[in-house]
């Protein structure tokens, strides 16, 4: 399994029967492939639906049925459409159980930077700021490093998406919980040592009973 699917599989274990979940564009989308059939997890797409199904075959593409990344999608039985006001009422109002997003940087306090590199990349925040503030549980799903540089920082240096809202970080190296007293390493990839994780992380880590990730 590649790094991205290791991450996605681990994130999927955080989802429970009946949860309403929003998966960000890119890596987080892969989480859907790892949700067990035995549970009902409802995927929201913030452009206006709950009940995101698998990608359609080319013969079943409907140009009016897309996700927030402009990909063609399908709707599961029991799903429904709504407008952007309702969609963000659901998000901001705390009705999303889990949101999973990528990161440019995430820090030990749970602050996240994911939408702008001033002067370089200015795509905009889209719905990310609302999702991170509104969802009951915020999981950052990201590769541990970008071109060798740690993404987990003591303090974010880029403009924030939201301040101190992230609950959990999942990378291919380990799983981290953001708590009152700091950032806890709670699981590690079986083939990655704690020392390596510490070395590849730009934030102080609290290390107690570190379990092995299922990969």
């Amino acid at each position, binding site marked *: 399994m590649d790094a991205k699917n290791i991450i996605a599989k681990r994130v999927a274990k955080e989802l429970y029967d009946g949860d309403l979940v929003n998966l960000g564009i890119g890596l987080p989308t892969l989480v859907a492939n790892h949700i067990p059939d035995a549970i009902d997890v409802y995927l929201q797409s913030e*452009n206006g639906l709950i009940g995101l199904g698998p990608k359609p075959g080319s013969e079943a593409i409907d140009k*009016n*049925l*897309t996700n927030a990344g402009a990909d063609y999608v399908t709707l599961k039985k029991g799903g429904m459409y709504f407008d952007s006001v309702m969609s*963000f009422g659901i998000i901001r109002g705390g009705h999303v159980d889990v949101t999973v997003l990528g990161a440019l940087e995430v820090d030990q306090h749970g602050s996240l930077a994911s939408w702008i590199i001033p002067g370089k990349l200015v795509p*905009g925040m889209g*719905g990310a700021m609302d999702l991170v503030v509104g969802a009951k549980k915020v999981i950052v799903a990201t590769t541990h490093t970008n071109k060798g540089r740690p993404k987990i920082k003591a303090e974010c240096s880029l403009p924030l998406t939201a301040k101190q809202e992230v609950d959990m970080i999942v990378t291919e190296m380990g799983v981290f919980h953001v708590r009152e007293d700091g950032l806890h390493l709670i699981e590690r990839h079986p083939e990655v040592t704690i020392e390596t994780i510490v070395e590849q992380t730009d934030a102080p880590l609290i290390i107690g009973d570190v379990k092995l990730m299922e990969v």
Partner: protein
Amino acid sequence: MHKTIDKQAFMALLDDNQRIAVGGFMACGTPETLIDWVVESGVKDLTIICNDAGFTDRGVGKLIAGDQVKKLIASHIGLNPEAGARMSAGTLSVELVPQGTLAERIRAHGAGLGGILTPTGVGTIVESGKRLIETNDKRYILELPLGADLALIEAETTDHKGNLVYDKTARNFNPVMATAATKVVAYVHQTVDMLDPEIIVTPHVFVDHIVEEVA
């Protein structure tokens, strides 16, 4: 009240310096025909309110590529490199707004509110220049209403009164924009004698003009 207009009557609604709200999400649910007519009209110095910048050749991206837009108010411009290029060159002013805040600001205008308090963006650069208000010991940004001179929206079906229903995720920002503009023009794919009164999303009182799809 006969609301159907032709291209000529539509063109007469356009003017330089207008503030135009355009429905759609990454060009899904954007009234492309109406955008094409705005391109053809050659009106300049527009302020466009839209979820995103569309693509270079789809959605409001066509107006940006044609240098007709002075200012864009949107949540995301990442899929349209022309928007980013013009922003860097200083020829396009871009106000990036979190998607849920964009929806609420437009709704506030349409619903006669003086503003809304949102937690989204607190502690980020989104709060700069805005009033912060505390209620129940929590900090919120006061976001102000956002209206337009003209709303260009797309719907699936109308009746002879101008009631509208939408198709799947092409709904998105269209209904809320219909509430927040001095004149609202809806491009519709079909007209029926009557719509079920339980399923109408946009009541006819919001719709000034209908442009019917030519088969």
